[in-house]
């Protein structure tokens, strides 16, 4: 494996550790102000929704609807109707693979 790839491994390890460690290192030891609870509670839906839509609709910097979009949408229906995490993932994978095999 090339030196360049090992540099990427080391670089990713360092930036990830810094990003995850910065907040706790700087802000820790004292309580956050009361207003922050509401913001923290809403961070998850905001970030997770963004992660889902970008991973389903973004192809690099292009927006595209494809087999994966359909597969994950179907998984969403299964999950809303009470399916487990694993069921949802299996539905997404099988649908996506099936549509690609047909297309």
């Amino acid at each position, binding site marked *: *494996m090339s030196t*360049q*790839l090992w*540099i*990427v*491994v080391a*670089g*990713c390890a360092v*930036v*990830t550790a810094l*990003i*995850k*460690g910065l*907040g*706790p290192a*700087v802000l*820790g*030891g004292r309580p*956050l102000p009361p*207003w922050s*609870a*509401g*913001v*923290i*509670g*809403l*961070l*998850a*839906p*905001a*970030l*997770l*929704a*963004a*992660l*889902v*839509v*970008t*991973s389903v609709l*973004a192809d*690099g*910097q*292009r*927006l595209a609807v494809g*087999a994966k979009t359909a*597969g994950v949408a179907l*998984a*969403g229906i299964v999950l*809303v109707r009470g399916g487990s995490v*694993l069921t*949802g*993932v299996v*539905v*997404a*994978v099988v649908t*996506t*693979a*099936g549509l*690609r*095999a047909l297309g």
Partner: protein
Amino acid sequence: MRAAADATSGAELAPRESFRAGMRAGLPFAAVGFIFSLSFGVLAREVGFSALGAIVMSAVVHAGSAQFAAISILAGGGGAVAATTAAALMNSRFLPMSASVAPSLPGGWLRRATQGQAVVDPSWAMARRAGGSFDRHFLFGATAVQYVAFVSGTAAGALGANVIGDIQALGLDAVYPAFFLTLLLAELRDRRARLVALAGGLIAVALVPFTPAGIPVLAASVVAFAGLARSRRTAA
């Protein structure tokens, strides 16, 4: 084990019980993470990683979306700096996430920063308790099982790349979004959370054509400041 620091966070469970509860809650995500990291292992081999290199990367980075971002840049002919930057941008969401955990972590700055490494999306979402505090032992337990599965999955993918074949044809690239969708649905408890999710999703989609990967997700965190308004209404 000194649990004095937990007294303020109103933890109902002893540290060990919390850790175990976290491990149990993390198991389904560990299973999904195994498949997810397996696909990472296969793709990493395709862009020139050795099996050892792929495994080491998962062991020292443990951030699937960032690792995918990095190798997709490399696959497109980008250099080490571009790949690392893409990973950093993809991980930028961990800035607000780990900052939100900060008050729940005891010890000096270095110890807190070390504990902050346990923040991964599912564990963070599940370890949150009423009032914005976090059960850190639950967080550690949930992340521990996911870490083991993530590194094992990478090993399986990297070592078995020839057997596994085409990740896209197998639909394994749908694992990651489906995984985050399960986490998202668990968050949509009330109308405000649904509106914030909708707004966050729209902002992210709108930014995709104009910004590098990762930025749309970070930008979506801004809508969480809707929590400043009427935050007293959702005391629970």
